[in-house]
């Protein structure tokens, strides 16, 4: 597959402007919702009906232009919409009822806020005259979701509804993407008012800055040209900036010859097959990526935010480097780490300008051979190596086999949260953006299964795999039923170690091996459970049966629940223990793990 051409095609498709009508028409509030969604190019919504959204469901019934996916829990709807958004670059849309419908959506909203995922969540509300009376299924939705949305609205006037809906899409998708909530009382859904089309609506003040300042770009290129030990530290901002940004990053890397690392959220923006790829950085990042971050003389941070999982101990973070920080959100600059050159702009635009200027000036990068030799020394540690076993399935082995057996297929990976997520991030090699859906900032167990539903909905012919843990997957297991209803052949690949593995690992390293409530005494029979849902259930206990079972999973036209029984005591390495610096990693179980008292305070 020619990745570059495909990426270019996709970015062109995203830029194709929609045709919009100029007239205003009279519609009911409920009809406006459906019309606004269609005018915004929405084809799929994830939702759950209830009393306060019945008029909107009635309008959906009368219209077959939008596919509604009935989830089993509103949290599932939000994660499905996140998966949909992350894998397509389009906003994810959710429709839920008032009260519990809205409160159940809160985890997904917070998740989307932390990971900058564009979501438009429509919530029903009790009729305006009942607001504030503790009515049935009333909750202060805008109050509850204020802290977990980029913006939210309670629409009390039907004539304001279409404006608000269009503004909601603008705010969710422009600048740093994020979730928004539009709370619509039931009487507003019934009332008739004037509908405005998207081209008639422009928010009063919301104008995110996307174009970089040229003098700042020039300064950045100058700093890069001088660097002797540079590193490109890339993040989810590049994915959010669209396929073009990934292309620009690839060009910048190839022009400069700089090594590239990425955060958890940025995986796929740069191809893992490139010799310039150092692997993921951070708490469970590779030895070479973290040491290169620590010892570099120029750090070029592109669309990342110096998260605590990435930086480790902050006063020892990359002490000798000059730092450039590109972010579309000005509030990220100097938040955690003071930088020498901030660039506030869209990642794709800024990187493209760097490439342009680098070429125009015919810049020759410093000879960084020595730097690469140092990096190769770190690489030689093979920090992702593990002790193989014939008797037990090592979780690393399971991921490696899953990766090997899915080559040549059109694969999308989602995950839950914990050890399996880190092993997947370390070992599954991504070549393209939008192929990796994971809960980074919030760390939401239960994200992966519904996210896979959303991804599969958007990519019906693709192979969508949720790399899961047995603890996480039980949190949103009910969405298996959604997958069956919509013939979504998602594959839930559970690394079953019977423990909340990451909790167990921390208890081993930090709490004297006192495994307080991290072992699941009772687990369901996942094979029977799969069958009960109408899925295929598979189990593997021994390394030698793994390949056949994985093939069976891939070939099944059904959703599959794969119970992969792995070594319950395996830990995820390498690891920067809490409170330690990048160059102070634990490489394997054999090294001495020493965590300071201050470190124990950190999560």
């Amino acid at each position, binding site marked *: 597959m020619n990745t570059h051409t495909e990426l270019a095609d996709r970015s062109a498709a995203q830029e194709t402007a929609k045709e919009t009508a100029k007239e205003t028409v009279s519609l009911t509030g409920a009809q406006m919702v459906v019309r606004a969604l269609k005018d915004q190019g929405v084809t799929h919504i994830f939702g759950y009906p209830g009393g306060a959204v019945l008029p909107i469901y009635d309008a959906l019934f009368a219209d077959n232009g939008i596919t509604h996916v009935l989830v089993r829990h509103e949290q599932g709807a939000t994660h499905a919409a996140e998966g949909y958004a992350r894998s397509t670059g389009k906003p994810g849309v959710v429709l839920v009822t008032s009260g519990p419908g809205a409160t159940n959506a809160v985890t997904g909203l917070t998740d989307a806020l932390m990971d900058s995922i564009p979501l438009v969540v429509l919530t029903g509300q009790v009729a305006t005259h009942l607001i504030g009376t503790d009515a049935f299924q009333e909750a202060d939705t805008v109050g509850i979701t204020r*802290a977990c949305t980029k913006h939210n609205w309670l629409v009390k006037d039907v004539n304001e509804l279409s404006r608000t809906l269009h503004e909601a899409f603008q705010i969710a998708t422009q600048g740093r993407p994020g979730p928004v909530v539009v709370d619509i009382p039931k009487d507003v859904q019934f009332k008739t008012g004037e509908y405005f089309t998207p081209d008639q609506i422009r928010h009063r*003040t919301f104008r995110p800055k996307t174009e970089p300042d040229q003098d700042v770009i020039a300064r950045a290129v100058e700093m890069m040209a001088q660097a002797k030990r540079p590193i490109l530290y890339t993040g989810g901002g590049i994915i959010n900036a669209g396929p073009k940004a990934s292309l620009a990053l690839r060009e910048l890397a190839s022009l400069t010859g700089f090594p590239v690392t990425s955060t958890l959220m940025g995986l796929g923006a740069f191809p893992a097959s490139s010799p310039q790829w150092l692997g993921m950085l951070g708490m469970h990042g590779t030895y070479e990526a973290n040491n290169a971050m620590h010892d570099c003389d120029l750090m070029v941070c592109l669309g990342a935010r110096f998260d605590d999982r990435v930086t480790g101990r902050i006063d020892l973070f990359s002490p000798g480097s000059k730092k450039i920080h590109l972010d579309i959100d000005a509030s990220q600059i*100097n938040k955690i780490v003071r930088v020498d050159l901030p660039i506030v702009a869209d990642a794709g635009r800024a990187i493209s300008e760097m490439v342009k200027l680098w070429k125009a000036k015919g810049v020759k990068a410093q000879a960084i051979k020595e730097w690469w030799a140092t990096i190769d020394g770190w690489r030689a540690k093979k920090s992702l190596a593990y002790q193989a076993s014939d008797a037990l399935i090592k979780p690393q082995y399971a991921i490696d086999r899953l990766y090997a057996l899915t080559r040549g297929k059109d694969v999308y990976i989602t995950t839950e949260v914990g050890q399996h997520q880190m092993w997947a991030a370390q070992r599954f090699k991504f070549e393209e953006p939008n192929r990796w859906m994971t809960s980074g900032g919030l760390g939401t167990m239960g994200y992966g299964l519904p996210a896979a539903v959303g991804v599969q909905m958007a990519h019906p012919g693709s192979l969508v795999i949720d790399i899961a843990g047995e603890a996480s997957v039980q949190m949103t297991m009910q969405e298996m039923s959604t997958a069956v209803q919509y013939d979504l052949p998602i594959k839930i690949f559970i690394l079953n170690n019977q423990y909340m593995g990451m909790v167990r690992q921390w208890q081993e390293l930090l709490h004297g091996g006192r495994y307080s409530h991290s072992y699941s005494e009772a687990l369901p029979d996942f094979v029977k459970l799969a069958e009960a849902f109408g899925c295929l259930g598979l189990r593997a206990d021994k390394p030698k049966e793994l390949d056949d079972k994985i093939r069976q999973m891939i070939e099944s036209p059904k959703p599959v629940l794969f119970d992969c029984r792995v070594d319950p005591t395996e830990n995820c390495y390498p690891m920067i223990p809490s409170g330690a610096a990048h160059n102070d990693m634990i490489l394997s179980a054999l090294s001495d793990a020493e965590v300071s008292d201050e470190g124990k305070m950190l999560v």
Partner: protein
Amino acid sequence: MANERHTLTALVDNEAGVLARVVGLFSGRGYNIESLTVAEVDPKAGTSRITIVTSGPPQVIEQIEAQLRRVVPVHAVTNWTFASGAIEREMALVKVSRGALPAAKAAAEKFGARALDEGGVFELTDAPAKISSFIEAMRALGLTDVSRTGVAAISRDSD
């Protein structure tokens, strides 16, 4: 790093929940609010001005400004502590006990405070530090109650 006190104003759309957004931002991110005032300033444009006195290390103050600018209905944020030629004023109502009235009247006169009635309520509009010293002076005499409005700030420039 040492804490600094800063006076910030945010010009905002006067829409439902805007004050909750700003206050929620401060409580959610652990920033201090020493005083806060809010009122509509342009009914035609539908804008209000929120004035907040806050304190924190310089890096935190910088973050507060950046976070405020991110709030969708916020039009502009000004840090008056950095702006030259800003005027900051606050109003206080101060009540003293009957017995303290004669001495309080004399003290009030020195501060330029106005007696609002014969019952012992005084009004003073001045810079926040002056208000504080007035209150301290009255406390020594027999203060019974205080109400302060918080700071309002504006630029001295004729722009």
